[in-house]
């Protein structure tokens, strides 16, 4: 690219500094809102990501079920594609586990001469199978198997978790898309204003023999610079928000200390600004007659 295009771009950036500063400030605000939306979604997503691994269904078996029948049931379960792991827990094992768990409170078991716990099977599902629909479908199938008395899983919890996740994703994405369009529009308008404030000069350049590229390149550069500056502004703001504001508040609100801050993703903000700025500038000059 012709070096003089940069010179022209920087002359204009300096000459129109107030318009440009206002745009940079607006873009920085927009990108900060995007960053916060992303930060929130990222953390909610991270907090819920581990949960499916802990999720398990417990199948309680009929009393006095024979070992053969249990093996049959285990075989049927293992054949299901959603199932990752199946573990048989006899009533005696269950009691041992319970006793181990309550070994400091042995008195609970005093006077208990018969094991009241049922035989059970613990079923763990594959990660991507832990959705409300799939779990419900599986439950219906399993409940139909002979010898199974009851199926237990955290239905309400699973539903809530799921709608929280998809809600956060939808809202976060909506904010990001709307704000990105807004930022492109700000860059578009700014470049258009810069252009109209220089029409006389541009008219003269054309009469002297300037190419379209010579006339347009400075505006692309200006859009890019404004975008990058907006990106840097938002990066600075989100860093301050995390390392100063949240860091200070977390002594009062311990939950804040557990927040994850994906720094390397936020370092992309200037690049995102550059992209949005150039996009806005391209739309602006594409619509001009020059």
């Amino acid at each position, binding site marked *: 690219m012709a070096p*003089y295009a940069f010179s022209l771009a920087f002359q204009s950036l300096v000459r129109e500094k107030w318009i440009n500063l206002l745009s940079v400030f607006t873009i920085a605000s927009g990108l900060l809102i995007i960053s916060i939306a992303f930060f929130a979604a990222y953390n909610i997503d991270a907090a819920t990501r581990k949960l499916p691994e802990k999720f398990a269904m417990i199948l309680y078996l009929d009393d006095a079920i024979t070992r053969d029948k249990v093996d049959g049931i285990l075989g049927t379960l293992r054949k299901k594609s959603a199932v990752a792991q199946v573990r048989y827990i006899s009533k005696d094992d269950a009691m041992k586990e319970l006793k181990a768990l309550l070994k400091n409170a042995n008195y609970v078991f005093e006077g208990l001469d018969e094991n009241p716990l049922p035989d059970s099977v613990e079923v763990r599902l594959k990660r991507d199978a832990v959705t409300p629909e799939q779990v419900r479908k599986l439950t219906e199938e399993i409940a139909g198997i002979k010898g199974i008395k009851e199926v237990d899983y955290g239905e309400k919890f699973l539903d809530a978790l799921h709608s929280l996740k998809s809600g956060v994703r939808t809202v976060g994405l909506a904010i990001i898309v709307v704000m990105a369009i807004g930022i492109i529009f700000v860059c578009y308008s700014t470049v258009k204003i810069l252009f109209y404030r220089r029409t*006389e*000069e541009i008219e003269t*350049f054309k*009469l002297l*023999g300037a190419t379209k590229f*010579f006339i347009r390149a400075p505006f692309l550069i200006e859009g890019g610079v404004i975008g990058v500056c907006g990106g840097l502004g938002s990066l600075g703001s989100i860093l301050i928000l995390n390392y100063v504001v949240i860091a200070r508040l977390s002594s009062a609100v311990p939950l804040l200390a557990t927040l994850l801050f994906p720094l390397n993703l936020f370092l992309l903000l200037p690049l995102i600004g550059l992209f949005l700025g150039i996009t806005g500038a391209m739309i602006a000059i594409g619509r001009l007659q020059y």
Partner: protein
Amino acid sequence: MISFTNVTKEYENQTALRDITFVVEKGEMAFITGPSGSGKTTLLKLIYSAEKPDEGTISVAGFELDQLKEPSIPMLRRHIGVVFQDFRLLANRNVFDNVAMALRIRNMPEREIKHKVYETLKAVNLRHKADSFPRRLSGGEQQRVVIARAMVADPTVLLADEPTGNLDADTAEGVVRTFKDINARGTTMLIATHNRDLYRNTGRKVIRLEAGTLVSVGQG
């Protein structure tokens, strides 16, 4: 180098040029004269393709203008230096930058530009005004800046629209001398002027317009 064949140019409400035919040969220095409003500026605008003819064909420096596509217009204009009647100086740039712009649009390196611009400013006696802004210059000085900008890139064709309009007789003579020098280097010149002194007794081609029609092509 410049040839018009049956060229007609109409603005919304009037005919600015009607059925104009003439030729300016390579290396020639020719004049256009005629009263105010006779179409001199319009004729020059047709040459650098700031206006399009409604009828007829124009050829300039090997370009057939009716076949010229939008992206090629800058290439045409780089063969032509223009002294605009209304100057078209950039108010927020100094004399040096105004003249340099003709080279910058050609992507010439800055070091060469510096050399070229100072040399040209010296030729029009404005070397000492390089850092001044146009509105701090007299009319005649501004005129000479425009002349410097038109000639700095060594164009094939130099068009001048009333280049001595703001100059006293002595300064005008200086400009004419400069034009002759440029012409002597092989640049084809076409000068629109009211000023008879510029062409009288030169034996050069004089194209006379009246109300948009060509009344004569004679010798000065």
